[in-house]
């Protein structure tokens, strides 16, 4: 009979990772009720009844000498030897586990030796705990619960009504601080609805807001287009001029052409475009003096792809 129906070789990798990551010391019961060698079997039976346990390790100091199981108690009762000392009836060759072993060892032992419990020793061979199939099952269920929650959060919300591609357009006017940020707020709401990761939404919002403010502060007016794909968001910020004389200068942190009034509002510090580039996975800027500027920024919304991007 297999006491824990787990295959430690070819279970799903999430489970295997779990039983190798968890150490026996994380799962075992620490306050072990023990008895000494001179304890009578009757006293041990009393301990079992009080503590509702089915095995009591016999110790001398912190050293393990043996273990008395419910079965041993029943046998002595049967033979009229219940008043005998524990050391006469205990199992001496106890199979033990070490606290730093992975949990998979305990599962294998349960399977191999058919005992319901194993005493756990530390590096100095001292008794530090006991592990039962119940401890294992409880802990595995808890950990699997956590793991399932984590996995569930990673699954894109399939029932979302807006899960296909979508395009959103906004017009931005020169010096219209009243409505600056509106496009970014709208896109943020739309992405939230799709269940996209909060950190990724923030990167999109940062890029979008900086580009929006750029149009309001520096251009004659223009617009923002957002193309939302299942795995990325493309932001296209275009304006009608006046264009950037030196794009390389504009991309340098601290370089700014903003006037004092704009600076007094907290903008125009020359951080906008560098900020956009930093949070984007793909970034492109094209500008023709006298005609206008178009900035295209792409941010991937699938976590595995965006992991390669440095954290903001």
């Amino acid at each position, binding site marked *: 009979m297999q006491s824990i129906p787990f295959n430690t070789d070819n279970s799903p990798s999430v489970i295997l990772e779990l039983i190798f990551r968890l150490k026996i010391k994380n799962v075992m019961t620490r306050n072990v009720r023990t008895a000494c060698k001179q304890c009578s079997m009757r006293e041990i039976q009393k301990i079992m009844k009080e503590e509702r346990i089915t095995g009591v390790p016999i110790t001398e100091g912190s050293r393990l000498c043996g273990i008395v199981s419910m079965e041993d108690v029943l046998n002595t009762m049967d033979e009229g030897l219940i008043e005998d000392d524990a050391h006469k009836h205990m199992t001496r060759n106890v199979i033990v586990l070490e606290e730093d072993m992975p949990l998979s060892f305990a599962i294998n032992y349960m399977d191999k030796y058919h005992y319901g419990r194993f005493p756990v020793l530390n590096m100095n061979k001292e008794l530090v705990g006991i592990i039962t199939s119940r401890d294992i099952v409880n802990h595995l269920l808890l950990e699997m619960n956590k793991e399932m929650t984590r996995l569930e959060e990673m699954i894109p919300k399939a029932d979302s009504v807006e899960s296909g591609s979508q395009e959103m357009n906004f017009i931005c006017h020169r010096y219209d601080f009243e409505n600056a940020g509106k496009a970014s707020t709208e896109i943020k709401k739309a992405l939230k609805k799709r269940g996209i990761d909060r950190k990724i939404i923030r990167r999109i919002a940062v890029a979008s807001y900086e580009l929006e403010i750029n149009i309001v502060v520096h251009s004659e007016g223009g617009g923002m287009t957002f193309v939302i794909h299942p795995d990325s968001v493309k932001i296209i910020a275009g304006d009608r001029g006046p264009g950037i004389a030196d794009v390389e200068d504009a991309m340098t942190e601290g370089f700014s052409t903003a006037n004092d009034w704009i600076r007094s509002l*907290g903008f125009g510090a020359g951080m906008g475009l560098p900020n956009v580039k930093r949070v984007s996975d793909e970034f492109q800027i094209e500008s023709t003096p006298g005609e206008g500027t178009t900035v295209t920024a792409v941010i991937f919304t699938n976590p595995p792809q965006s992991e390669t991007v440095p954290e903001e």
Partner: protein
Amino acid sequence: MKVKDLAGKLNYECLVSEGDENEILDGYTSDLLSDVMGNAPEDSVLITIQAHKNTVAVASLAGITVLLICNNRPAPDDMLAAAADEGISVYRTKDSQFTASWKVHELI
């Protein structure tokens, strides 16, 4: 800690309380909105003298849930209305950004 708990301890003037139930994990002091946008940690209190509607927009996009206006700067009504809409609390103090920063830092 919660915004309302922090506010209660500091005894600062409450202008908008819509974000009072939010958790604050960090803080950021800056008057440069691009800097806030790029560098302020999420769930921060923003300590600033920039009291206008765009501060609220930046805060909302950067995931900031409470604004602390220093030097008793006047906060326009449209700013407070926008903050209420976005669920962001606004507090005001006569303290400077420096003083407010260390007071807040000590509490969170």
